[in-house]
Protein backbone atom coordinates (compact mmCIF):
# COMPACT_ATOMS: atom_id res chain seq x y z
CA UNK A 1 0.00 0.00 0.00
CA UNK A 2 2.92 2.24 0.72
CA UNK A 3 0.90 4.13 3.28
CA UNK A 4 2.74 5.11 6.43
CA UNK A 5 1.60 3.06 9.38
CA UNK A 6 1.04 6.12 11.45
CA UNK A 7 0.58 8.93 9.05
CA UNK A 8 1.89 11.28 11.65
CA UNK A 9 3.35 14.69 11.45
CA UNK A 10 4.25 17.42 13.84
CA UNK A 11 1.68 20.08 13.60
CA UNK A 12 2.54 23.72 14.23
CA UNK A 13 1.78 23.42 17.92
CA UNK A 14 4.18 20.50 18.15
CA UNK A 15 1.39 18.05 18.85
CA UNK A 16 1.26 14.60 17.38
CA UNK A 17 -1.47 14.41 14.80
CA UNK A 18 -2.91 11.19 13.54
CA UNK A 19 -4.43 11.11 10.13
CA UNK A 20 -7.29 8.69 10.09
CA UNK A 21 -8.42 9.55 6.59
CA UNK A 22 -5.88 7.07 5.30
CA UNK A 23 -7.94 4.18 6.61
CA UNK A 24 -11.42 3.39 5.56
CA UNK A 25 -12.60 1.76 8.72
CA UNK A 26 -11.00 -0.51 11.30
CA UNK A 27 -10.68 -3.50 8.96
CA UNK A 28 -8.69 -1.33 6.60
CA UNK A 29 -6.44 -0.20 9.43
CA UNK A 30 -6.00 -3.79 10.59
CA UNK A 31 -5.05 -4.88 7.09
CA UNK A 32 -2.58 -2.06 6.91
CA UNK A 33 -1.06 -3.13 10.24
CA UNK A 34 -0.97 -6.74 9.14
CA UNK A 35 0.85 -5.86 5.95
CA UNK A 36 3.36 -4.02 8.02
CA UNK A 37 4.41 -7.33 9.55
CA UNK A 38 5.73 -8.06 6.09
CA UNK A 39 4.68 -11.68 6.20
CA UNK A 40 2.14 -13.67 4.30
CA UNK A 41 -1.31 -12.95 5.70
CA UNK A 42 -1.73 -16.66 6.37
CA UNK A 43 1.32 -16.52 8.65
CA UNK A 44 0.28 -13.39 10.46
CA UNK A 45 0.20 -13.37 14.24
CA UNK A 46 -3.26 -12.29 15.18
CA UNK A 47 -2.14 -11.58 18.72
CA UNK A 48 0.56 -9.19 17.50
CA UNK A 49 -1.93 -7.60 15.20
CA UNK A 50 -4.46 -7.11 17.97
CA UNK A 51 -1.83 -5.51 20.16
CA UNK A 52 -0.80 -3.12 17.41
CA UNK A 53 -4.38 -2.11 16.82
CA UNK A 54 -5.04 -1.54 20.51
CA UNK A 55 -1.83 0.46 20.78
CA UNK A 56 -2.94 2.60 17.87
CA UNK A 57 -6.30 3.31 19.43
CA UNK A 58 -4.59 4.06 22.76
CA UNK A 59 -2.30 6.54 21.09
CA UNK A 60 -5.19 8.17 19.30
CA UNK A 61 -6.93 8.63 22.63
CA UNK A 62 -3.78 10.15 24.14
CA UNK A 63 -3.70 12.84 21.53
CA UNK A 64 -7.42 13.33 22.07
CA UNK A 65 -8.18 12.34 18.54
CA UNK A 66 -11.81 11.64 17.97
CA UNK A 67 -12.11 8.12 16.77
CA UNK A 68 -15.12 6.89 14.89
CA UNK A 69 -17.29 4.53 16.91
CA UNK A 70 -16.39 1.71 14.54
CA UNK A 71 -12.77 1.83 15.65
CA UNK A 72 -13.73 1.66 19.30
CA UNK A 73 -16.18 -1.20 18.79
CA UNK A 74 -13.44 -3.11 17.00
CA UNK A 75 -10.99 -2.27 19.80
CA UNK A 76 -13.39 -3.67 22.39
CA UNK A 77 -13.94 -6.80 20.36
CA UNK A 78 -10.21 -7.28 19.81
CA UNK A 79 -9.47 -6.73 23.52
CA UNK A 80 -11.98 -9.49 24.24
CA UNK A 81 -10.38 -11.72 21.63
CA UNK A 82 -6.93 -11.05 23.08
CA UNK A 83 -8.02 -12.00 26.60
CA UNK A 84 -9.62 -15.18 25.27
CA UNK A 85 -6.46 -16.08 23.41
CA UNK A 86 -4.28 -15.51 26.48
CA UNK A 87 -6.46 -17.14 29.11
CA UNK A 88 -6.44 -20.87 29.70
CA UNK A 89 -8.66 -22.60 27.21
CA UNK A 90 -12.31 -22.89 28.01
CA UNK A 91 -13.48 -26.01 26.19
CA UNK A 92 -17.06 -24.76 26.45
CA UNK A 93 -16.39 -21.58 24.49
CA UNK A 94 -18.12 -21.61 21.13
CA UNK A 95 -16.73 -20.44 18.87
CA UNK A 96 -13.27 -20.95 20.29
CA UNK A 97 -10.94 -17.94 20.38
CA UNK A 98 -8.72 -19.65 17.82
CA UNK A 99 -11.63 -19.88 15.46
CA UNK A 100 -12.50 -16.24 15.98
CA UNK A 101 -8.89 -15.35 15.25
CA UNK A 102 -8.98 -17.48 12.13
CA UNK A 103 -12.12 -15.74 10.93
CA UNK A 104 -10.56 -12.35 11.45
CA UNK A 105 -7.57 -13.53 9.48
CA UNK A 106 -9.82 -14.75 6.67
CA UNK A 107 -11.64 -11.45 6.54
CA UNK A 108 -8.35 -9.64 6.22
CA UNK A 109 -7.30 -12.02 3.45
CA UNK A 110 -10.57 -11.50 1.67
CA UNK A 111 -10.32 -7.72 1.78
CA UNK A 112 -6.67 -7.93 0.74
CA UNK A 113 -7.61 -10.17 -2.18
CA UNK A 114 -10.29 -7.75 -3.35
CA UNK A 115 -7.97 -4.80 -3.03
CA UNK A 116 -5.43 -6.65 -5.12
CA UNK A 117 -8.08 -7.68 -7.65
CA UNK A 118 -9.23 -4.08 -7.98
CA UNK A 119 -5.68 -2.94 -8.70
CA UNK A 120 -5.27 -5.68 -11.29
CA UNK A 121 -8.53 -4.72 -12.96
CA UNK A 122 -7.52 -1.09 -13.23
CA UNK A 123 -4.16 -2.10 -14.66
CA UNK A 124 -5.74 -4.03 -17.54
CA UNK A 125 -5.78 -2.73 -21.08
CA UNK A 126 -8.83 -0.56 -20.76
CA UNK A 127 -10.95 0.68 -23.63
CA UNK A 128 -10.45 4.39 -24.09
CA UNK A 129 -7.14 4.38 -22.23
CA UNK A 130 -4.98 1.61 -23.62
CA UNK A 131 -7.00 0.26 -26.47
CA UNK A 132 -9.35 2.21 -28.68
CA UNK A 133 -12.43 1.40 -30.64
CA UNK A 134 -13.14 2.88 -34.04
CA UNK A 135 -13.09 6.66 -33.82
CA UNK A 136 -15.72 7.43 -36.42
CA UNK A 137 -17.90 4.39 -36.99
CA UNK A 138 -20.40 4.71 -39.81
CA UNK A 139 -23.04 3.26 -37.52
CA UNK A 140 -25.57 0.55 -38.22
CA UNK A 141 -29.10 1.53 -38.93
CA UNK A 142 -32.19 -0.38 -38.14
CA UNK A 143 -35.07 0.78 -40.26
CA UNK A 144 -38.44 -0.26 -38.98
CA UNK A 145 -41.02 -0.71 -41.68
CA UNK A 146 -44.66 -1.26 -40.98
CA UNK A 147 -46.05 -4.30 -42.74
CA UNK A 148 -49.68 -3.31 -42.97
CA UNK A 149 -52.16 -6.07 -42.41
CA UNK A 150 -55.75 -6.29 -43.52
CA UNK A 151 -57.94 -9.08 -44.81
CA UNK A 152 -60.43 -9.18 -47.65
CA UNK A 153 -63.21 -9.60 -45.12
CA UNK A 154 -62.07 -6.46 -43.30
CA UNK A 155 -62.24 -4.64 -46.60
CA UNK A 156 -65.75 -5.77 -47.55
CA UNK A 157 -67.06 -5.27 -44.04
CA UNK A 158 -65.64 -1.76 -44.08
CA UNK A 159 -67.38 -0.98 -47.37
CA UNK A 160 -70.61 -2.46 -46.11
CA UNK A 161 -70.30 -0.32 -43.03
CA UNK A 162 -69.75 2.82 -45.04
CA UNK A 163 -72.70 2.08 -47.30
CA UNK A 164 -74.97 1.18 -44.43
CA UNK A 165 -73.98 4.31 -42.63
CA UNK A 166 -74.44 6.75 -45.49
CA UNK A 167 -77.37 5.27 -47.44
CA UNK A 168 -80.28 7.73 -47.36
CA UNK A 169 -82.65 6.36 -44.78
CA UNK A 170 -86.19 5.84 -46.19
CA UNK A 171 -88.79 5.06 -43.59
CA UNK A 172 -91.58 2.94 -45.03
CA UNK A 173 -94.79 2.41 -43.06
CA UNK A 174 -96.60 -0.70 -44.20
CA UNK A 175 -100.35 -0.64 -44.95
CA UNK A 176 -102.29 -1.22 -41.81
CA UNK A 177 -106.01 -1.68 -41.41
CA UNK A 178 -107.41 1.10 -39.30
CA UNK A 179 -110.85 2.44 -38.49
CA UNK A 180 -110.95 6.16 -39.03
CA UNK A 181 -112.76 8.43 -36.59
CA UNK A 182 -115.41 9.22 -39.24
CA UNK A 183 -116.11 5.54 -39.76
CA UNK A 184 -116.38 5.01 -36.03
CA UNK A 185 -118.81 7.89 -35.51
CA UNK A 186 -120.95 6.61 -38.31
CA UNK A 187 -120.89 3.07 -37.01
CA UNK A 188 -121.57 3.95 -33.36
CA UNK A 189 -124.48 6.22 -34.38
CA UNK A 190 -126.05 3.43 -36.40
CA UNK A 191 -125.58 0.84 -33.68
CA UNK A 192 -127.12 3.15 -31.06
CA UNK A 193 -130.46 2.84 -32.83
CA UNK A 194 -130.39 -0.92 -32.14
CA UNK A 195 -129.08 -0.80 -28.59
CA UNK A 196 -131.66 0.96 -26.43
CA UNK A 197 -130.30 -0.42 -23.15
CA UNK A 198 -126.83 0.23 -21.66
CA UNK A 199 -124.39 -1.61 -23.85
CA UNK A 200 -120.60 -2.00 -23.51
CA UNK A 201 -118.57 -0.13 -26.10
CA UNK A 202 -116.83 -3.38 -27.10
CA UNK A 203 -120.09 -4.77 -28.34
CA UNK A 204 -120.11 -2.15 -31.10
CA UNK A 205 -116.75 -3.28 -32.50
CA UNK A 206 -116.71 -5.27 -35.73
CA UNK A 207 -115.71 -8.92 -35.46
CA UNK A 208 -112.06 -9.31 -36.52
CA UNK A 209 -109.08 -11.65 -36.05
CA UNK A 210 -106.63 -8.81 -36.46
CA UNK A 211 -105.74 -7.58 -32.96
CA UNK A 212 -104.14 -4.41 -34.38
CA UNK A 213 -107.30 -3.54 -36.26
CA UNK A 214 -109.36 -4.32 -33.17
CA UNK A 215 -107.21 -1.93 -31.15
CA UNK A 216 -107.70 0.74 -33.81
CA UNK A 217 -111.47 0.17 -33.74
CA UNK A 218 -111.57 0.37 -29.98
CA UNK A 219 -109.63 3.63 -29.89
CA UNK A 220 -111.69 5.22 -32.67
CA UNK A 221 -114.97 4.02 -31.21
CA UNK A 222 -114.08 5.46 -27.83
CA UNK A 223 -113.32 8.81 -29.42
CA UNK A 224 -116.55 8.56 -31.43
CA UNK A 225 -118.50 7.91 -28.23
CA UNK A 226 -116.95 10.97 -26.61
CA UNK A 227 -117.79 13.08 -29.68
CA UNK A 228 -121.42 11.83 -29.77
CA UNK A 229 -121.76 12.44 -26.02
CA UNK A 230 -120.53 15.99 -26.59
CA UNK A 231 -123.23 16.41 -29.26
CA UNK A 232 -125.79 15.14 -26.72
CA UNK A 233 -126.68 12.10 -28.81
CA UNK A 234 -125.27 9.53 -26.41
CA UNK A 235 -124.89 8.84 -22.66
CA UNK A 236 -121.72 7.28 -21.17
CA UNK A 237 -121.30 5.43 -17.91
CA UNK A 238 -118.49 3.72 -16.04
CA UNK A 239 -118.99 2.29 -12.56
CA UNK A 240 -115.37 2.52 -11.48
CA UNK A 241 -111.96 3.10 -12.95
CA UNK A 242 -111.00 0.54 -15.60
CA UNK A 243 -114.38 -1.09 -15.55
CA UNK A 244 -116.46 -1.44 -18.74
CA UNK A 245 -117.56 1.71 -20.46
CA UNK A 246 -121.22 1.47 -21.38
CA UNK A 247 -123.21 3.59 -23.78
CA UNK A 248 -126.88 4.29 -24.45
CA UNK A 249 -128.73 6.58 -26.79
CA UNK A 250 -129.53 9.87 -25.11
Amino acid at each position, binding site marked *: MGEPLFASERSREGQLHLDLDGWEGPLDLLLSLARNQKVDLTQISILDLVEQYLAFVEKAKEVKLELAADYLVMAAWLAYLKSCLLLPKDPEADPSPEELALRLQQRLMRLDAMRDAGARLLARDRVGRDVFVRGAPEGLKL*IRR*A*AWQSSAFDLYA*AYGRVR*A*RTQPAVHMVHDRRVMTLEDAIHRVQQMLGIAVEWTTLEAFLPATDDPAFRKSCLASSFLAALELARQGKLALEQEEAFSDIRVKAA
Partner: protein
Amino acid sequence: MEDVTRAVEAILFASEEPLSVEAIEGHVGENLAVEGAVKEALGALAEHYEGRGIELVERGGRWHFQTAPDLSHHLRREREEPRRLSRAATETLAIIAYHEPVTRAEIEAIRGVQISKGTLDVLMEAEWVRTAGRRETPGRPLQYATTREFLTHFGLGSRRNLPGIDDLKAAGLLDPLDEEALQLELESDETLASEDEED
Protein backbone atom coordinates in the same frame (compact mmCIF):
# COMPACT_ATOMS: atom_id res chain seq x y z
CA MET B 1 3.98 -6.81 -40.28
CA GLU B 2 6.13 -3.75 -39.79
CA ASP B 3 5.81 -1.72 -36.61
CA VAL B 4 5.16 1.50 -38.47
CA THR B 5 2.42 -0.12 -40.54
CA ARG B 6 0.75 -1.50 -37.43
CA ALA B 7 0.91 1.93 -35.82
CA VAL B 8 -0.57 3.66 -38.88
CA GLU B 9 -3.35 1.08 -39.06
CA ALA B 10 -4.26 1.61 -35.40
CA ILE B 11 -4.03 5.39 -35.63
CA LEU B 12 -6.32 5.61 -38.64
CA PHE B 13 -8.75 3.15 -37.08
CA ALA B 14 -9.04 5.10 -33.85
CA SER B 15 -9.07 8.56 -35.41
CA GLU B 16 -12.31 10.48 -35.36
CA GLU B 17 -11.48 12.21 -38.63
CA PRO B 18 -9.40 11.67 -41.77
CA LEU B 19 -5.71 12.33 -41.13
CA SER B 20 -2.99 13.91 -43.25
CA VAL B 21 0.34 12.15 -43.62
CA GLU B 22 1.89 14.76 -41.34
CA ALA B 23 -0.69 14.20 -38.64
CA ILE B 24 -0.12 10.45 -38.82
CA GLU B 25 3.61 10.97 -38.58
CA GLY B 26 3.03 13.09 -35.49
CA HIS B 27 1.22 10.20 -33.81
CA VAL B 28 3.64 7.55 -34.98
CA GLY B 29 6.58 9.44 -33.48
CA GLU B 30 10.05 10.16 -34.75
CA ASN B 31 11.47 6.77 -33.95
CA LEU B 32 9.25 4.94 -36.40
CA ALA B 33 8.26 7.71 -38.80
CA VAL B 34 11.52 7.88 -40.67
CA GLU B 35 11.57 9.59 -44.06
CA GLY B 36 8.76 8.19 -46.19
CA ALA B 37 7.94 5.33 -43.84
CA VAL B 38 4.37 6.46 -43.18
CA LYS B 39 3.63 6.96 -46.87
CA GLU B 40 4.98 3.53 -47.57
CA ALA B 41 2.86 2.07 -44.80
CA LEU B 42 -0.25 3.79 -46.18
CA GLY B 43 0.43 2.28 -49.58
CA ALA B 44 0.90 -1.17 -48.10
CA LEU B 45 -2.30 -0.87 -46.08
CA ALA B 46 -4.36 0.41 -49.00
CA GLU B 47 -3.20 -2.57 -50.99
CA HIS B 48 -3.84 -5.00 -48.17
CA TYR B 49 -7.42 -3.84 -47.66
CA GLU B 50 -8.31 -3.85 -51.32
CA GLY B 51 -11.26 -6.15 -51.86
CA ARG B 52 -11.90 -6.61 -48.15
CA GLY B 53 -14.92 -5.38 -46.18
CA ILE B 54 -13.04 -2.22 -45.32
CA GLU B 55 -10.94 -0.01 -47.50
CA LEU B 56 -8.34 2.65 -46.91
CA VAL B 57 -8.99 5.74 -48.98
CA GLU B 58 -7.39 9.13 -49.51
CA ARG B 59 -9.56 12.18 -49.96
CA GLY B 60 -7.91 15.56 -50.44
CA GLY B 61 -4.66 14.45 -48.88
CA ARG B 62 -6.31 12.90 -45.85
CA TRP B 63 -6.58 9.21 -45.16
CA HIS B 64 -9.33 7.23 -43.53
CA PHE B 65 -10.83 3.79 -43.34
CA GLN B 66 -14.34 3.23 -44.60
CA THR B 67 -16.54 0.23 -45.19
CA ALA B 68 -16.61 -0.99 -48.77
CA PRO B 69 -19.37 0.85 -50.67
CA ASP B 70 -20.86 -2.35 -52.11
CA LEU B 71 -21.63 -3.58 -48.58
CA SER B 72 -23.70 -0.59 -47.53
CA HIS B 73 -26.90 -2.63 -47.62
CA HIS B 74 -25.57 -4.68 -44.70
CA LEU B 75 -25.28 -1.56 -42.61
CA ARG B 76 -28.94 -0.74 -43.04
CA ARG B 77 -31.14 -3.44 -41.76
CA GLU B 78 -34.83 -3.31 -42.38
CA ARG B 79 -37.24 -4.91 -40.07
CA GLU B 80 -40.87 -5.35 -40.92
CA GLU B 81 -43.31 -4.95 -38.10
CA PRO B 82 -46.82 -6.18 -38.74
CA ARG B 83 -49.41 -3.51 -38.05
CA ARG B 84 -53.12 -3.72 -38.37
CA LEU B 85 -54.77 -1.22 -40.69
CA SER B 86 -56.96 1.23 -38.79
CA ARG B 87 -60.70 1.34 -39.29
CA ALA B 88 -60.51 4.68 -41.05
CA ALA B 89 -57.82 3.42 -43.40
CA THR B 90 -59.70 0.21 -44.16
CA GLU B 91 -62.85 2.15 -45.03
CA THR B 92 -60.92 4.57 -47.18
CA LEU B 93 -59.23 1.71 -48.97
CA ALA B 94 -62.59 0.02 -49.57
CA ILE B 95 -64.09 3.21 -50.98
CA ILE B 96 -61.15 3.68 -53.34
CA ALA B 97 -61.41 0.05 -54.45
CA TYR B 98 -65.15 0.31 -55.22
CA HIS B 99 -65.15 3.76 -56.74
CA GLU B 100 -61.75 4.31 -58.32
CA PRO B 101 -60.55 6.63 -59.63
CA VAL B 102 -61.85 8.76 -56.82
CA THR B 103 -60.89 12.13 -55.35
CA ARG B 104 -60.36 12.83 -51.73
CA ALA B 105 -63.52 14.94 -51.57
CA GLU B 106 -65.48 12.02 -53.01
CA ILE B 107 -64.03 9.62 -50.48
CA GLU B 108 -65.07 11.96 -47.72
CA ALA B 109 -68.54 12.35 -49.17
CA ILE B 110 -68.99 8.58 -49.34
CA ARG B 111 -67.53 7.96 -45.91
CA GLY B 112 -69.51 10.81 -44.43
CA VAL B 113 -66.41 11.61 -42.39
CA GLN B 114 -63.28 13.57 -43.22
CA ILE B 115 -60.08 11.66 -43.77
CA SER B 116 -56.69 12.75 -42.56
CA LYS B 117 -53.69 13.01 -44.82
CA GLY B 118 -52.08 10.30 -42.73
CA THR B 119 -54.73 7.80 -43.75
CA LEU B 120 -53.94 8.10 -47.44
CA ASP B 121 -50.20 8.11 -46.65
CA VAL B 122 -50.53 4.80 -44.86
CA LEU B 123 -52.34 3.28 -47.83
CA MET B 124 -49.72 4.60 -50.23
CA GLU B 125 -46.93 3.32 -47.94
CA ALA B 126 -48.56 -0.08 -47.93
CA GLU B 127 -48.46 0.23 -51.73
CA TRP B 128 -52.15 -0.55 -52.01
CA VAL B 129 -53.12 2.90 -53.28
CA ARG B 130 -51.57 5.13 -55.89
CA THR B 131 -52.40 8.51 -57.28
CA ALA B 132 -54.18 8.24 -60.63
CA GLY B 133 -53.84 11.62 -62.31
CA ARG B 134 -55.98 14.67 -61.82
CA ARG B 135 -59.69 14.99 -62.44
CA GLU B 136 -60.34 17.51 -65.21
CA THR B 137 -62.76 19.53 -63.14
CA PRO B 138 -62.31 22.89 -61.43
CA GLY B 139 -59.50 22.66 -58.90
CA ARG B 140 -58.10 19.62 -60.78
CA PRO B 141 -58.17 17.39 -57.70
CA LEU B 142 -55.90 14.36 -57.44
CA GLN B 143 -57.51 11.01 -57.98
CA TYR B 144 -56.69 7.80 -56.18
CA ALA B 145 -56.83 4.20 -57.34
CA THR B 146 -55.73 0.80 -56.10
CA THR B 147 -52.58 -0.99 -57.22
CA ARG B 148 -51.63 -4.42 -58.45
CA GLU B 149 -50.20 -5.10 -54.96
CA PHE B 150 -53.65 -4.39 -53.57
CA LEU B 151 -55.19 -7.06 -55.76
CA THR B 152 -52.45 -9.51 -54.79
CA HIS B 153 -52.68 -8.85 -51.08
CA PHE B 154 -56.45 -9.27 -50.96
CA GLY B 155 -56.42 -12.27 -53.26
CA LEU B 156 -58.34 -10.57 -56.03
CA GLY B 157 -57.50 -11.45 -59.61
CA SER B 158 -58.98 -8.16 -60.75
CA ARG B 159 -61.27 -5.44 -59.48
CA ARG B 160 -64.17 -7.25 -61.16
CA ASN B 161 -63.83 -9.87 -58.41
CA LEU B 162 -64.82 -7.39 -55.72
CA PRO B 163 -68.12 -8.60 -54.33
CA GLY B 164 -71.02 -6.49 -55.59
CA ILE B 165 -73.51 -4.63 -53.47
CA ASP B 166 -75.93 -7.53 -53.72
CA ASP B 167 -73.26 -9.92 -52.46
CA LEU B 168 -72.56 -7.65 -49.55
CA LYS B 169 -76.26 -7.43 -48.78
CA ALA B 170 -76.59 -11.20 -48.91
CA ALA B 171 -73.68 -11.51 -46.50
CA GLY B 172 -75.46 -9.16 -44.12
CA LEU B 173 -72.71 -6.60 -44.46
CA LEU B 174 -75.10 -3.84 -45.42
CA ASP B 175 -77.48 -4.28 -42.51
CA PRO B 176 -77.56 -1.12 -40.51
CA LEU B 177 -76.77 -1.93 -36.94
CA ASP B 178 -78.19 0.85 -34.83
CA GLU B 179 -75.78 0.39 -32.00
CA GLU B 180 -72.81 0.15 -34.25
CA ALA B 181 -73.91 3.20 -36.17
CA LEU B 182 -74.26 5.14 -32.97
CA GLN B 183 -70.83 4.11 -31.88
CA LEU B 184 -69.45 5.06 -35.24
CA GLU B 185 -70.94 8.46 -34.88
CA LEU B 186 -69.13 8.97 -31.63
CA GLU B 187 -65.92 7.53 -32.95
CA SER B 188 -65.88 9.67 -36.02
CA ASP B 189 -66.31 12.73 -33.88
CA GLU B 190 -63.28 11.75 -31.92
CA THR B 191 -61.20 10.83 -34.90
CA LEU B 192 -62.16 14.05 -36.52
CA ALA B 193 -60.86 15.94 -33.57
CA SER B 194 -57.61 14.01 -33.49
CA GLU B 195 -57.34 14.14 -37.24
CA ASP B 196 -57.53 17.86 -37.13
CA GLU B 197 -54.64 17.92 -34.75
CA GLU B 198 -52.65 15.72 -37.05
CA ASP B 199 -52.96 18.06 -39.96
